[in-house]
């Protein structure tokens, strides 16, 4: 108990003194997750609108598949990306394994189904009368889609925040394809995982607190959005 308490005190010290390593890791974590979230959103909003507004065979099945991928195990994505980009793999020549770039690629694969699925349900949540009224008032398909996205903007934003949260808090993928290289690919989660096994409780705790605080603020944002 004593040990945990001193660990906690030291952890708070690390945070309040703006320890350079803590700051650096936190910044990297945020950057990587934000990049992957931005890319996944850029893919998901147009694609989600396209899926929502067109009727085609197998649409329901496709949506089911997307929803199934919400819970995609991070290590499975990690394994897939690792095989694809390892020296001997089909994309090995790019030489991006164990770089922040591949971590972003992996996270995009991980969270795109989540954001995509939630964007589709955000659009379905908008009263059908909205798109009908728009069409009736002379909107083209694109104009109708933009209006519907605007009408469902809080649910769409919630989808983005959820995606960011998943990317930010996952560890398996970042560890497998990022390699947890100090000063290069180390993120909050991978550092906690490594430092804990090394016995460095203080740093882990400090990072854990930061992780929790950020996760908390994400959730508060999400809650506010969902109440709108």
């Amino acid at each position, binding site marked *: 108990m004593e040990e945990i308490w001193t660990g906690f005190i030291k952890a708070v010290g690390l945070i309040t003194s703006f320890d350079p390593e803590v700051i650096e890791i936190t910044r990297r974590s945020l950057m990587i997750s934000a990049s992957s979230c931005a890319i996944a959103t850029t893919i998901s909003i147009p694609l989600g609108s396209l899926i929502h507004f067109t009727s085609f065979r197998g649409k329901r099945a496709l949506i089911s598949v997307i929803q199934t991928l919400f819970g995609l195990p991070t290590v499975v994505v990690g394994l897939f990306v690792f095989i694809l980009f390892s020296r001997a793999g089909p994309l090995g020549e790019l030489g991006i394994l164990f770089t922040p770039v591949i971590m972003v690629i992996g996270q995009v694969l991980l969270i795109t189904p989540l954001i995509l699925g939630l964007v589709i349900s955000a659009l379905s949540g908008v009263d059908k009368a909205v798109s*009908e009224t728009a069409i009736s008032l002379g909107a083209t398909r694109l104009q109708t889609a933009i209006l519907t996205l605007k009408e469902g903007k809080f649910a769409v934003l919630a989808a983005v925040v959820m995606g960011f949260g998943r990317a930010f808090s996952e560890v398996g993928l970042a560890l497998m394809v990022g390699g947890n290289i100090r000063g290069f690919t180390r993120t909050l989660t991978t550092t906690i995982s490594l430092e804990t096994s090394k016995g460095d409780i203080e740093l882990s705790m400090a990072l854990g607190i930061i992780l929790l605080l950020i996760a908390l603020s994400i959730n508060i944002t999400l809650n506010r959005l969902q109440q709108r």
Partner: protein
Amino acid sequence: MILVEAKNLTQRFGENTILTDVNLKVSRKEAFVIIGPTGAGKTTLLRILDLLDRPSAGSIAFSGIDITSSKRLRQSTRRRISFVQQKPIVFHMNVYDNVACGLRWRGVKETIIREKVMSVLELVAMHEYKDRNAKTLSGGETQRVAVARALVTDPEMILLDEPTANLDPISASKIEEVLTHVITEKKTTMIMATHDMSQGQRLADRIGVMIAGRMLQVGSPREIFISPQTREIAEFVGVENILPGIVTGRDGNLANIEVEKQNIEAISAYHEGERVYVLVRPEDITLSLSGESSSARNNLVGRIVKMVSVEPLVRIEVDCGFHLLALITNRSSEEMGLTIGKKVYCSIKASAISIIKRW
């Protein structure tokens, strides 16, 4: 000149047939009102005319061009039409932007948009609300915004689905005022659905009566009111005395019709032995205490069985072998001292009766 022509429209949803073989021709600048009870298929028809839904069968032509199947023509034609739905929704924006949407989507310049939006908001008396969040408006205000939004694009044709159905009387009369302006001043072609016969009469050049998915009768408001062609239409347009009878003989253009062993004379071309309905509007029945002074062909004697006062009128049900419902003013009822059980004469002119075929 015909603006829109629908031929043999049929709409089915699964097992249910909502519209059956509906034909409709509406001329440019005409105000056409579809009346019919709830569930008659009025909304379904309007949705097809607004090109929101495709019919299961049949075709629609605009200005003589068939646009049923061409996607491109449907989009460009839709921009010439506006539709005010029964329960219009507004977007999460202020009133001004809600009304401006249609113009922005058409790529109109902001300066022109400003001018048009403000003028149409003034027309519906909503200009003071232009910065209000449209979601916070009352039902009547929302309806006015919906009408403004529909008018701002200067459509060639405006479709309205029960535009006053859920409104208080003041909001309803405001909307009617605006619609009157649109059809008389702007000469916009209008097709409106309503279940309110009197609203139809106030606004329509022609009325189409729709019952159970069929357009049963089309004609001037007066024609529909005076001579409904079927029992259902008669009931719907407020003919409250619908009496089954048989033609027993003819005398010139007059027919003798036996109703419950009583003889009724009416102007009709039906022949002896034909089964008919005798239609009499309650307001066409004159009540008196002695039948002698009446010049009317039909004088039926009976006893009052029921009186319901609906100021300033009173509805009086008289049993003269069959029940007749008469409508007179409360004042004349008092003057005659009418009470339940009292003997009265019901006088009906032969010309006030219409006769329809009974199948």
